[in-house]
């Protein structure tokens, strides 16, 4: 199947279920449906042999990245979008082969995720599909995910509103393994050029409720030019200093 990818774009329909339910009964396979991209008709459906070598996994990941970069998933649901990282995460989880994610492999996944999230409506206090996906990618791929986000968010390469939402969740989520790097990302984003990113970082740090951020807030307050945002910095600073 990998060999045929160059001939024609295809749709891979890989759902969460495919990755969660198969291991119990058929630990060496997972279900995959491949459909013609243009026609939307199924080409192949069934069990795909489990990949046994790191090289094969890398080929597969590269293929997924090609699909993502080519925007072949533009009409797909968010579930299909998850293909790339779910696949690699599942392989890492259920096999003895360790897949080492790098920021380079995750950036296209995040770019696509952020692009889709532009259509979501974000509200304070509410989870979204985007927030759930973001948390899952970070929990599954750890430091590499935070490093990839560190390359994308502060520079405003992706939609600012989505960045702001991401930062809130980067602070809110519970994942001890990435705690330090997530906090560092939030502290760094306090000095972003984009006010909404600074606000998202502030809300993320507020959710973390970690006095380590105090020094960074002091610095941010000194340099903040938007009065309303400065007031918000000061409020969170007071909260943290009262701890």
């Amino acid at each position, binding site marked *: 199947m990998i060999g045929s990818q160059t001939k024609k774009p295809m749709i891979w329909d890989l759902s969460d279920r495919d990755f969660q339910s198969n291991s119990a009964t058929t630990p060496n396979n997972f279900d995959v449906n491949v459909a013609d991209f243009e026609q939307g008709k199924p080409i192949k459906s069934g069990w795909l042999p489990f990949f046994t070598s790191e090289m094969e996994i890398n080929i597969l990941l590269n293929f997924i990245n090609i699909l993502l970069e080519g925007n072949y998933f533009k009409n797909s649901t968010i579930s299909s979008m998850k293909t790339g990282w779910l696949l690699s995460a599942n392989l890492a989880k259920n096999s003895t082969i360790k897949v080492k994610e790098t920021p380079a492999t995750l950036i296209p996944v995040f770019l696509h995720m952020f692009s889709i999230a532009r259509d979501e409506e974000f509200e304070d*206090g509410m989870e979204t599909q985007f927030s759930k996906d973001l948390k899952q990618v970070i929990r599954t791929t750890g430091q590499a995910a935070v490093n990839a986000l560190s390359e994308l968010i502060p520079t405003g390469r992706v939609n600012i509103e989505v960045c*702001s939402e991401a930062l809130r969740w980067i602070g809110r989520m519970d994942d001890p393994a990435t705690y330090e790097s997530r906090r560092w990302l939030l502290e760094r984003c306090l000095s972003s050029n984009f006010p909404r990113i600074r606000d998202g970082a502030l809300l993320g740090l507020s959710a973390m409720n970690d006095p380590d951020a105090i020094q960074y807030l002091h610095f941010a307050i000194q340099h903040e030019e938007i009065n*309303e945002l400065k007031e918000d910095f000061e409020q969170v600073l007071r909260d943290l200093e009262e701890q």
Partner: protein
Amino acid sequence: MPYLHKIRKAKWYKNDDPPWLNPNEIQADALTDIGTKDNELSVYLVDHQKNNLDQVAVALSLTRDFVSNFDYALIREEDLENARIKIRSDPKKGYTPDETVNSQHFDIYEITAQELLTLASIIRNSEIARITEIKMKEKAAKALFEKRIDLTKIRLKSESRKEIEQLASKMVNE
């Protein structure tokens, strides 16, 4: 008396954000904070001294997945009157776990697209503020502690609910 409407504060900055925005202009994204349903918009009455502001904020925050920061605008009654924007009391549509707050629910109604823009302008010039997440959690716990909340109507997800209940039980012990 002013009416509270929940917003996202960062969309309403008066400074140059985004940079292409001219002074006194409002970015279109801000309109998502005043999305109407059946040409109506929910608001809650707050007294002049803002004595019930926290109560309203807590009641609304307990209808979410989790307690977070609470951003709001206080829309002046006279601004609505001057713009001839219609408003009426409708306690039945108050959906919070606090009956007192529900009784203060109002609908801005029969809103035209033109009025929506006027409303955006009114909000931009109104008092806009934020209660931080840490403070909101304390206030929510206090409301539980004081038994002002109908526990069956809290919509928080279990993890967030547990956190608030733990804070409230700490208050009991203290």
